[in-house]
Structures are given as structure tokens and as C-alpha cells.
């Protein structure tokens, strides 16, 4: 029933291909971007929850520490 209806749409076979390409590009781009992230930035972000004032470090010191 549904396939009858869908087969009436011109170029329907292209739709799943487009979806697949879209999905692939989304994840490929995400992986590429993530792989290229700056190591210093990553270290800083990883440590973000662990920073506390009581440890006598404010964030400017942390930034200097990590980015230098």
C-alpha cells in the first residue's frame, strides 16, 4: 500500500541515498572536527569541573597554566 504510493513519486529511489549521504557527512564531519581539536583546549575542558577556588586556582591561572 505504502510502496504503491511511494513508487508514484518521481525519483523516489534518490531519497534514501540522500539520507545516507547526509547521515554519513554529519558523522564524518563530526569525527573530523573532533579529531582536529586542540590538545590544550581539550585538557583544559577535561579539567574544568575539577577546578575549584578552594584549590587556590582561579581560572586565569588555569588558562595560563594550560595554554602556555
Amino acid at each position, binding site marked *: 500500500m505504502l510502496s504503491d*504510493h511511494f513508487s508514484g513519486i518521481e525519483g523516489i529511489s534518490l531519497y534514501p541515498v540522500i539520507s545516507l549521504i547526509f547521515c554519513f557527512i554529519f558523522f564524518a564531519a563530526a569525527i573530523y572536527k573532533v579529531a582536529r581539536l586542540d590538545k590544550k583546549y581539550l585538557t583544559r575542558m577535561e579539567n574544568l569541573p*575539577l577546578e575549584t577556588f578552594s584549590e587556590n586556582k582561579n581560572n586565569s591561572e588555569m588558562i595560563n597554566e594550560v*595554554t602556555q
Partner: protein
Amino acid sequence: MQAEKFSYDNQIVKQFMIAALVFAAVGMLVGLIIAIQLYLPDLNLGIPYTSFGRLRPLHTNAVIFAFVGNIIFAGVYYSLQRVVKARMWNDKLSQFHFWGWQFIILSAAVTLLLGITTSKEYAELEWPIDIMIAIVWLAFGANMFGTIIKRREKHMYVAVWFYIATFVTITVLHVVNSLELPVSLFKSYSLYAGVQDALVQWWYGHNAVAFFLTTPYLGLMYYFLPKAANRPVYSYRLSILHFWALIFLYIWAGPHHLLYSALPDWAQSLGTVFSIMLIAPSWGGMLNGLLTLRGAWDRVRDNPVLKFMVVAVTAYGMATFEGPMLSLKSVNAISHFTDWTIAHVHVGALGWNGMLSFGILYWLVPKMWGTELYSKKSANFHFWISTLGIVFYAVPMYWSGVAQALMWKQFTQLGVLQYPNFLETTLQIIPMYIIRSFGGLLYFSGLLLMFHNLLMTAKNGKFIKDEETEAVPYDREADKLQRGLIHRWLEKRPVKFALLSAVVILIGGLVEIVPTFLIKSNIPTIAAVKPYSPLELQGRDIYIREGCVSCHSQLIRPFRSETERYGEYSKAGEYVYDHPFLWGSKRTGPDLMREGGKYSNLWHYLHLEDPRQMSPGSIMPRYAWLLENQLDTTTTASKIKAMRTLGVPYENGYENFANRDLSKQAALITEDLRKSGAPAEADKEIIALIAYLQRLGTDIKVNKAGGK
């Protein structure tokens, strides 16, 4: 740049924590009561307010929105302030959020017990409460974004992304699924009907699990697990992938709740495919959590907080592997409608949500009261009885789920059902129900132990209402990092981040929902299907009020074992006037799709009065009050009018005569009952319910008879 002095608001965190603890007790106690009612049905004491059908939504709502909800808010308010280095944007808004949410919970508790419900799972609350939820939720969002915007930390930590995605998605889900037409102050009909209503509901239901029970908790995991272990998250790269992949894929998976249903096949297949793909990000997240403890596993041995968190993350891994397996059609054919689903959700709820919550609370209370945990021994004991509680809960439920499914499907050599009487299969699993409630009792006892431990901890310390701190304000000029620009650019802009999250989650929803609404051939109309008569419509609303849908499905899957037992399988076109749909998700009792004409009116009358009169050993509660309650016919006209507005073809002006037809039909049923010797009265609710039950599924039967 000079560091600024400011303080974190701990008061709001404390309030949400206390509320979470109180409602955890309520929600779990109600859960325990209904677990016992499944083998002692008279435990409802013969009154409507404590019957299974009304308590079950109270249990789910209390645990999800009151316990987990309040933990989410406590955790978000604590961690958000600290990772963005700013006090919550507006203290008054925080208070409005807190009291608004608690008021919603109380309104929910009262209305659900009164039988005021939309019957849509996890979205049972009626329209005035839905509006309150929207307002309070937006206040939470405004407060969160206000805080993020005035932050002193340039980048948003991964936990914050999860909080933003939660806010955005829940807003969309709540609005779309709650679209309903009010009939009166406490009654409304879903804007959608039948298959469409089912699809929207399970798109919502599935994603309520995803974006209320999962994404905010993952945010909490990314903050509290590194804090408790005192080491950074294993891989920040993985967390970025985890986030985008999870929110992109999750939203598509809803239709896996409707496999073998009348939903178009293509939508079912999409649901399955995306569910399988979900294993990757889910396990990515689980591994990221567990590997955060690399090199620190020895600390798990003597740190109860880490113990709770490790079991929580492991339970998350188990549940997110099991979920995709359950979405395979061949597995779902067995698991669906059985206790297997109950086991699955409780591994998630008790394991993932419960254990992570306990871990967070044991970590937070000593921190916020500036002291040590009162008793580590007690926390350790709590850990063990909770873990055992989960085992005693889940294992019997898996057992009973599989056992019952196999009995439902068993044929004899002669080709007839081996257990044609549904009740036979129920009686076999009663021992499992008893063991399950023992598991629940263990888990609940652990909660009480934690109450005591946390209370004593708080007593020993002094609550730090405003935690003084200082931080250097966010300096845009200082940003000299060059690589990996796109994502960093994005996460510095919370509003754009939220919009992109919205786009990502909307893709899946739109692809699935829009065609189901637009393509007519998805729901073929059946000429024989007619709108409900006024009496049947009133009866249907009683069915909704009593929560019959909690235990009875109205969906016959196209299996021989089901068509033999229940009759012709369900067609999409049969539900076109069902606002809301009542397919159900669990068969504690048999399916009622083709109940009409199966038994006499007298059978239903006596069965509702006391099910054990007709089916000895039945675990269904008595509905004796239906024999006493007067049917409220003043609402008939407004109900007919509302249904017509929604597209049900009642003739114009029919509402003026509807009660005349109602009385006629009621008189016929009453006469039949009286002839059979039952002291029935035409104006009682039970007559309407019988009319509805006798109508169920008869359109197709009529069609068949006409065709012969």
C-alpha cells in the same frame, strides 16, 4: 583582569534535593503497593483512588518527574553554577521554578488519584497542568540560559550541552504531545487520533526516556563522576561525539514501541534501524564514564559514592544494549506487552537513575554541609541492598516476561492454543510477582537508610547557603586558541548551540511524523468504522478514568497466536475516531480490541463487580463503585461537540439529541441485564462501560458479516 568575588546559590540545590528525597519515597512506596496489588488485588481496599489503574500513573509520574526531575534540577543548579563560574541568573526565578514544580507534582498526585487523566503514558496530566508545566519549564530554561550568558568561563563544559539539549527537546516534546482540545476544566481529547496519536505519543514517550531520564543524567555523570573520582573525564573528544550522535539518533527511535502494530511498516523499520545505531553513542558514553576511573579502581572499593556511580553507569550500558535488542522485531514479538519491558525499564530506572542519584546525594550533602558523610558503613550497606534489590526485581520480571510470552504463543499438536485462557498464564507468574515486590522492598529500605544517613550528616555539619568564591570574568579578547574552531565557536554561543540542537532533534521527528499525517494511504479508511455512540463515548471516558489501559491493550498483532486468541488483527483504519488512542503497552490482562460480543452483558456486569466471580484467581481489582456511581450525562453534548471539532463525523446539532440516544441504548442494556437477573439501573456508570466494551472491535466483525 581582576578576579570577581561572588557566591554560588546552594539553597536552591538543597530545596530540590529535599523534594527529590520526599518524592522518591512516595513514588517508590506507591510502586511497591501496586507491585503487591498484582497478587493481592483487594489491597486497594475497594476504593477507586487506590486502584491499580490510578496508582500506576501516579507511580510513574512520581518517580520520573518528581524524584528524577528534582534530582536533575538539584544537580543542574549545583553543577551549572560551578562550570560556568556564575551564580544562577535570578534567585527569584530559581524559587519560582522550585515551587512551581512542586505545585505541579501535587496537582498531578491529586488529579491522577481522582482519575483525571489523558491516559497517554508519562503525559497523563490534564491540560491545565500541561500549561503549568510549560510555564515552569520555560522559567527553568530562562534561568539556565541567563546563567550561561553571564558566565565567567568562556567555554561550556560538555555537561552543559546535555542540559541545553534536555531543555530544548523536552520543550518540543511536551508541546507537540500535549496538543489537546479541552472539553471541560479537567477533561480534554488528544488532537490526534489512533495511529497518529500512537506515533506522536511514542515519539514523546521514547524521547521522554531519552531526554528526561538519559541526557540530563549524562550531563550529571560528566560532572559528578569526575568530581567524585577527582580525575578528569576519560576523553573529551569522545564526549563531543557522544553528545551529537546521541541527540541525533535518539529522536528517531520512538516507533520501536509500536512494532507489529498498525503503524506503517516504514516507520517501524526506521525505529529499529536507529535503535541499533544508538548502541554506538550510548556505549561511547558508558565507556567514557567507566574509563574515567582508569587507574582509580582501587578507590571504588572503599568509596560508596563511586560504587553507586559504577553500578549506575554499568546499568546504563546494560539498558542501552538491551533496548536496541528489544527493538529487533523477532525479539519484540516475544518481549512486547510482557514483564520483560518492566524489567528493562527498571534496570534503567533503579540502576541508572536511582543509583546515580544516590551517588550524587552521598557526594553532595557532605560537600554542602561542610562535613564528612555520617556513616560510610551505612552507605555501603545501602549500596548492597539496592544492588540486590535490582537483581530481585529484574530477574523475576525477565523470567515471568519470557515465560508468559511463550505460554501465549504455545500451540498444541492439534494446532490450537495450549493456554486459551489468558488467566492460566497469569497464575503461572504470580510467584515472580511476589519475588519482584521483595526486590522493590529491598530497594525502598535502602532509600530509608539513606534518609537517615544524610540527615545525620547534615546535623553534624553546617549548611553553606551561599558558597563564596571568585573568578576572572570571561574575556573575549583573550581567546587565542585557533584550531578546532567550529565547535568551540558554537559552544561559546549557547543560544546558537540550542538552536542547532533543536534542528538536529527535529529532523528525526519530522521525517517520521509528517508523512504519517500527510499521506492518506498510510491510514486506509474502513467504511464500516463508525463513531462511538454517546453512551459508548461516555463509557470510553470511564475506561480512561479507571486506567484500564494500564493492563489491557487494544492492539492485536498479526501473529497466529494472537488472532487465534483475540480475533482479526488490528487495522490502522479502525482507530480513526480514537482520541486518544488506547493501544496500551502491557498485557497484565488480555487484549480487549475485539472484546465486543465476546461475553454477555451480564458477564461484564458481574466481572466488573468482582472479577473473581467470573474468573477465579483473577488479579483484576473490583470496580464495584461503577455499579453505584451515577453517569454524568451533562457532559455528553460538549464531548460530542469536541469530537466533531476534531473531525469525528457527528452530524451538526447531534449534541442536542445525543442524550436521548444515550438513554435509549442504556435502557436496552439494562433491560437485558435485568432479564438475566442483575439488579442493574440504566443511569449508572457501569452501563456506559459495558456499552463501550461491547462495541470494541465490532466494526470489522460487522463488516465481515455484511460481506458474507
